[in-house]
């Protein structure tokens, strides 16, 4: 059953839709974290938040968008995920360039066992870029965007593991930005970070949304409320409710959404 994507309210009708998800269903070989019949619109230049209790399918959805799910034990994928009108799930998709277009930040800061600089230029290495000056520019540009430049500009050649947890995560954000993607996916990027680092990341995201499409899985309802331009509530693999930011937290339509937002379960 392919649902039509729920439409955005009338006053948001002029929004450019970057990603259109139609009737997406995913199941793993061991039955965990599946999605059933998800239909969703993700607008450009905005933060779309996917929130809900654990096991709701949010990570699966993120990993489907950049085809990282190919690495996992996926048994079946149905439906379409249209990025700029092209279905990323089609076998003809160039997965490599898709992943350069769609950057990802993971829940635990995973820095590569290299210097700070090389962590950032790694993505450029992969695509065969060799120009030193443009690499240096990319390094500075992305570190500034992640609000990390001031802290590390003097020690770019030190090992990335020497950074604190919060700094490492911002490095991961910068790393995703180096390739100048169009979409940034973040899967609970601030879980395990202290409040100050969390704040810095959220501030960066608010800056970045002016130029990128951001899809964020927050680690708390409060973070969702702070950052969301649009929010989707997931429960047990289904999309329960979807609306512009303020609305879903102050005035949810579905009872289950309200229960979760009020903290009655989770």
């Amino acid at each position, binding site marked *: 059953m392919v649902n039509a994507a729920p439409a955005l309210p009338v006053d948001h009708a002029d929004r450019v839709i970057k990603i259109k998800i139609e009737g997406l269903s995913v199941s793993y070989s061991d039955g965990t974290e599946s999605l059933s019949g998800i239909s969703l619109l993700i607008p450009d230049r905005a933060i779309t938040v996917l929130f809900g209790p654990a096991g709701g399918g949010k990570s699966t959805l993120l990993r489907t968008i*950049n085809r*990282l799910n190919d*690495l996992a034990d996926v048994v079946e994928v149905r439906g379409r995920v249209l990025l700029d009108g092209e279905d990323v799930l089609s076998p003809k998709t160039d997965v*490599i*360039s898709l*992943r*350069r277009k769609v*950057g*990802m930040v*993971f829940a*635990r800061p*995973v820095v*590569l*066992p*290299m210097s700070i600089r090389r962590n950032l230029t*790694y*993505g450029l*290495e*992969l*695509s065969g870029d060799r120009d030193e000056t443009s690499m240096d520019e990319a390094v500075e540009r992305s570190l500034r965007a992640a609000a990390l430049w001031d802290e590390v500009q003097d020690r770019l050649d030190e*090992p*990335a*593991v020497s950074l604190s947890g919060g700094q490492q995560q911002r490095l991961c954000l910068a*790393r*995703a930005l180096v*390739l100048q993607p169009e979409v940034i996916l973040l899967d609970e990027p601030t879980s395990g970070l202290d409040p100050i680092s969390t704040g810095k990341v959220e501030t960066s995201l608010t800056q970045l949304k002016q130029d990128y499409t951001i899809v964020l899985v927050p680690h708390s309802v409060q973070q969702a409320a702070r950052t969301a331009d649009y929010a989707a509530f997931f429960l047990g693999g289904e999309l329960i409710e979807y609306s512009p930011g303020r609305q879903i937290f102050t005035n949810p339509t579905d009872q289950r959404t309200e229960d979760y937002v009020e903290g009655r379960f989770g």
Partner: protein
Amino acid sequence: MTADMNASLGPQKTAGVSASRRKRIERLGFAGMSLAALLTVAPIVLIVVHIYSNGLPAISWEFLTAIPRDGMRAGGILPAIVGTFWLTLGTAVIAVPLGVGAAIYLAEYAADNRWTRTIRIAIINLAGIPSVVYGLFGLGLFVLFLQFGTSLLAGSLTLAIMTIPVIISTAEEALRAVPNSFRVVSVSLGGTQWQTIRKVVLPQALPGILTGVILGLERAAGETAPILFTVAAFFLPRLPHSIFDASMALPYHLFVISTQVPGMPIRIQYGTAVVLLTFVLGMNVIATIIRSRARARRQW
């Protein structure tokens, strides 16, 4: 688990045996174990000390660089040293690409199916085949069937196949130890599988792989049985010129001069033993150094 433990420890028994008696049993037991460990380790030290103290006096520049004379009762052992060197190198050239390649396949590419299990069974088998059977195989295939003759080529090929399983198991372990999150990150940045392996996984696994390779080659260098019929020459007072030449080798040389040559000066026997031991120990030390330095420098 808990039920088992309760049954074996038995509350009544524990309560009945006094704490001090249990302590005494423990102290005795620990002493016994440390005695066992000492008995295991002391002979190694004794052997090494014995060989060095008796053999070092025989070592001289002439001994290391001259050709043997007088049916090997005088002169040096250069051909044996050179032969072992070439054999080790030949083994490395063949075994390392095959072994590391197979390890990469098993760690990074192979799915969990019947074929993969067959490969693993084959590797376990190869690892357990007696060295003399390798010698027979080498004789049958390389020396006779392929007509390489008794040669460095046949010997290296035989030793290589014997060494491959050792390299595969240590290399695979080293590759698996690299955290999977690195691979995921590399792929998410648009890397292909081979790029990920080449740029991230292999460099991180390299010290472990190297250690395994060196230990494998150490074993190959010291083996006699596989080279008995495939390359070893009894008395060849010249250096090998090509891979098709037979050659002397240190382990075989030691065997011959300690069992087959009447009137062999004991000094030369110990001297040869020292050279072989140094070669083998040296590789062991290098492998250990690589391993501990890598552990200290690890960034994960």
